[in-house]
């Protein structure tokens, strides 16, 4: 936080934000992260978790609709968690992101040339073929996976699953650089506490 004036009119409009949270790999971390959102009555639209490019550091990618003010406060609370290394908030244009969707349809539907056309038209692919069903895979933004869903619907979708968003950010600074900065941060020679009596 710089010395520059923080007093800006808070835009109250809701937008889609991607929050990337980097944490130590600890039991219960997901719970710690999510209660920050639930306590403020913010609904998480999607969440994914995986190990990041740095071994032992986990990355949570959370998508939510909220106001800028709400998200900034949440990020403050997240960074306050002892085991959170860093949290970032991004607007849609700052991230490259994808979701993956799987569609299970009857193999018989393939006999209809229309399904194949839909698959090709959506740049999807057939992931596996069974005598009874086939699984179609589509990677893309939610609008794209949804569009395929709508187009396959007339042929009967037996099962459908869509992942949460995975995202990388556009700025070039690497996580390892942040980590090095964090580790280099001077630690106080003595902690800010003294005891006035015995304990």
């Amino acid at each position: 936080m710089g010395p520059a004036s923080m007093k800006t009119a808070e835009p109250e409009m809701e937008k889609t934000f991607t929050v990337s949270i980097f944490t130590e790999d600890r039991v219960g971390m997901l719970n710690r992260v999510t209660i920050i959102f639930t306590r403020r009555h913010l609904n998480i639209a999607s969440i994914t978790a995986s190990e990041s490019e740095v071994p032992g550091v986990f990355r949570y990618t959370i998508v939510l609709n909220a106001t800028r003010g709400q998200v900034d406060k949440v990020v403050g609370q997240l960074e306050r968690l002892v085991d959170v290394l860093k949290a970032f908030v991004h607007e849609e244009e700052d991230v490259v992101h994808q979701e993956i969707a799987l569609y299970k349809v009857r193999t018989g539907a393939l006999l209809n040339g229309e399904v194949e056309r839909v698959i090709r038209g959506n740049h999807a692919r057939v992931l596996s073929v069974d005598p009874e069903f086939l699984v179609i895979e589509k990677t893309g933004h939610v609008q794209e996976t949804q569009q395929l869903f709508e187009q396959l619907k007339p042929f009967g979708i037996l099962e459908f699953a869509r992942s949460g968003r995975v995202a990388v950010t556009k700025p070039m600074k690497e996580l390892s650089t942040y980590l090095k900065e964090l580790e280099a941060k001077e630690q106080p020679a003595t902690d800010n506490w003294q005891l006035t009596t015995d304990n």
Partner: protein
Amino acid sequence: MNDMKTMNCTGAQAVIRALLAENVTTIFGYPGGAIMPIYDALYDHRDALNHVLVRHEQGAIHAAQGYARATGGTGVVFATSGPGATNLITGLADAQIDSTPLVCITGQVASALLGTDAFQETDVMGISMPVTKWNVQVTRAEEIPAALAKAFHIARTGRPGPVLVDITKDAQFGALDFAYEPCVRIRSYHPKPELPLAALQEAARLLDGASKPFMVIGQGVLLAHAEEELLRFAEKTGIPVASTLLGLGAFPCDHPLYVGFVGMHGDYAPNIKTNECDVLLAVGMRFDDRVTGDVSRYAKQAKVVHIDIDAAEIGKIITPHVPVHADAKDALRELTTLVQARRHPDWLREFQEAKRVEVETLAENAMPAEELKMDEVVQLLSARTRGEALVVTDVGQHQMVAARHYRYRKTRSNITSGGLGTMGFALPAAIGAKLAAPEKTVVAVIGDGGFQMTLQELGTIMQSKVAVKVLILNNRFLGMVRQWQQLFFEKRYSFTEMVSPDFVALAKAYGIEANRVEAKDGLDEGLSRMLAHEGPYLLEVMVAKEENVFPMIPTGASVSEIRLA
């Protein structure tokens, strides 16, 4: 610490050794099945570690809070699994919101039984997560030293808070090679921010140009041990100083620059001047709604400088013009060198004038003179102790009256449950405070309602011979709620009238000297006897039943709409 390195130490012994390595001398606790190995290990060290056996785990944690707040050290609690641990939850929430450093050690069922609904198994990690600064479950003996080292480091550094370490029974029984390394750094945790020099320069520039600068200080000053720096800064700049409830005592109440206590039942002058100042300097406080009233009409005319060690507090409620993410001690020291020496006599006179209005208006509306009033009791207590006692208050009218009328002259002389407003806090907290500061006169000021929430701790006072003075202001009502019913619910006194036992007889049943004051003429003698008594003492003072606490900022009103009647 090589001498401590031994083979075949049990997990339970490791807990005790870690506490000794952290220079812990006092533990508040209550035993049970899942923590028995630790209690057994404690038995060999009962001379070095003074374990105070409480009567309820809530009593243990509030006592530890009182202990921590009286010293600035870390309070330590032992409790067993299941109900022992769940009884800590109120205290954890209280310590979390009031930033009190605690290390709570709970026993847990054996790791193989976790998640099986075993006897006295509760998901303590899950339950305590939202009300702790950090928590950890230890299932292997060899993890105990590092877990406790980390726990102490996290509890007391940065913005302090409660930490819970849940240790399974098999970890307590397990063996390890004990070696204790105090924790000094955690990669993901940076408790001490770097001093933001540019922000401080900007703050100094604002303050130098201000004609009506005003400072509101909070508990952050105490937590940072910044009382000296605050005094020097205030005396150089001549800025009037007001305090939040938890900041009381950080700046002497009898100092000419001290202008009172802010908030819902605070003083008139600092509340109305909040909306007249041109620069508001907030130090180690968090703009609680009880302080701000209607936020949208709080200090709108002022340029706000907010100093806080917790980045998440800056901009949470009030967006400052100058955010200063810093330790209060460092920030005030630096700021003192940057600002010009100034005086603001006319501005200070405005506070004195407002104070006169408050005193006169309150006197005009005072209740009939025959009845004993809470403020008379507190004023006399303040005079008889020369503002030097450590006053622990419970929650309600008596709490607000004590905050307004006790003239705190010493640091760490005010301990109260602020953020959570936990009735039942004062009696156990006073026990902890007295054990931490035996040289001080410790007076617990409690209502008839709150006393009955934790009165079982009279047993602790008896057994551990804790020389606290318990002053019950008995209005035969849950007074604060009754006041709201009178003012905002058409006097419909829905379940606020309270019938109580004979508190004096009750105290005597515990072997505690006790007395009752029923009228004005007995007050001085009653208080003097209480204060002169060597050991613990309970004094019940019968006060007016339907007295109201004024000034008051009604919910939703702005600080400038504070009511005097």
